């Protein structure tokens, strides 16, 4: 009876990789969503920057709003582009972790089958 209970517990084994992988994938998705939100904010600054004629943009003096906007656009783009890849990579790592979980589940399944099939074959 105890063996039967152990077998049921083994069959219902859930690897920690299942939860961890899903959490990583969702965290990555949230990072990419945050990048989209920052992108929308930057789009507003970009639109404002290009409202100025070319000669004003080119002749902008240090400390002016135009130059500050230009700096913000360049600075944000510099970290926003890599952050997109951080988000995508987190999702891919999540997929890798879940695949690891599949491998562990298959191993447990092999052990369960090895115990059940002889009993089925012998009709016990």
């Amino acid at each position, binding site marked *: 009876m105890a063996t039967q209970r152990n077998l049921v517990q083994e069959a219902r*084994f859930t690897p920690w990789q299942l939860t961890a*992988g*899903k959490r990583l*994938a969702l965290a990555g*998705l949230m990072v990419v969503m945050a*990048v989209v939100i920052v992108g929308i904010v930057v789009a507003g600054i970009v639109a404002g920057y290009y409202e100025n004629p070319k000669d004003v943009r080119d002749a902008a003096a240090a400390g002016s709003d135009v130059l500050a906007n230009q700096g913000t656009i360049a600075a944000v783009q510099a970290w926003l582009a890599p952050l997109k890849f951080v988000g995508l990579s987190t999702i891919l790592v999540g997929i890798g972790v879940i695949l690891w979980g599949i491998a562990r589940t298959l191993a447990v399944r092999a052990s369960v089958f090895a115990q059940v099939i002889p009993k089925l074959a012998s009709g016990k």
Partner: protein
Amino acid sequence: MAIAVETRTAPTEVAVTSGMTGMQKMARVMWGPMLLMGFMMVAIAFIIGIVNSGTAADYFAADKATREAATAGSSLVDNRVTIEGIRAWLPGFKFLGMGLILSGITFLVATILGTLRHLGYRVQTALGRDVMIPTPPGEARVFPMLMMMGLMVLIGTFIVAIVVSQQAGEYWNHSIATELDPALAGSALLSQLGTINAEAAWLAPLKFLGLATILTGIAFALAAIVKVLRAQADMVVGFISND
């Protein structure tokens, strides 16, 4: 934790798709065309890129003063219109192709899930038992929605990119030296330039969001495989418990 099951009477004939859900039957047929279409789109984008590089080479063969003095209707301005127009829509097209490839992979994982259900169905039929198929886990309901959402985001960004390419074409169909550079604050040309650059700023991350959503769907589809494998092991143990 008990696993919910639905009971079906074992049929005399076993079809290849027996035990699969409607979505899995569709996925079994659709994964190939999706992968092929996606790959073709990415390959077409590459060919268009090569053609556009020829136009860019022609355009930059002229010196800066000549390029900037060229007026609307001249071949130089036409080349610039082509370059900027393609630059606006081509990335969206490539991402849509990548999205279709990832959707094809999602459908393949769904096909694996369907095959696992079919396997359970076949084993129970072979053992002469009433067929009990576990109800799909929550992840199996979520991943098709994530895939569809991601694909819709990519289709949406591609449509916006086509609109932006029209605007880019209109903007660059002017002389740089006499019309674009001297454009005054509040002019339609400057407003167009602002719109083009602003749309590019939010459109690029949105394309990544589309891909990320489909990839998250793949993660959930794989998580469903873990749960289905667990349910199958549980069911096999049930065979000896019931005997």
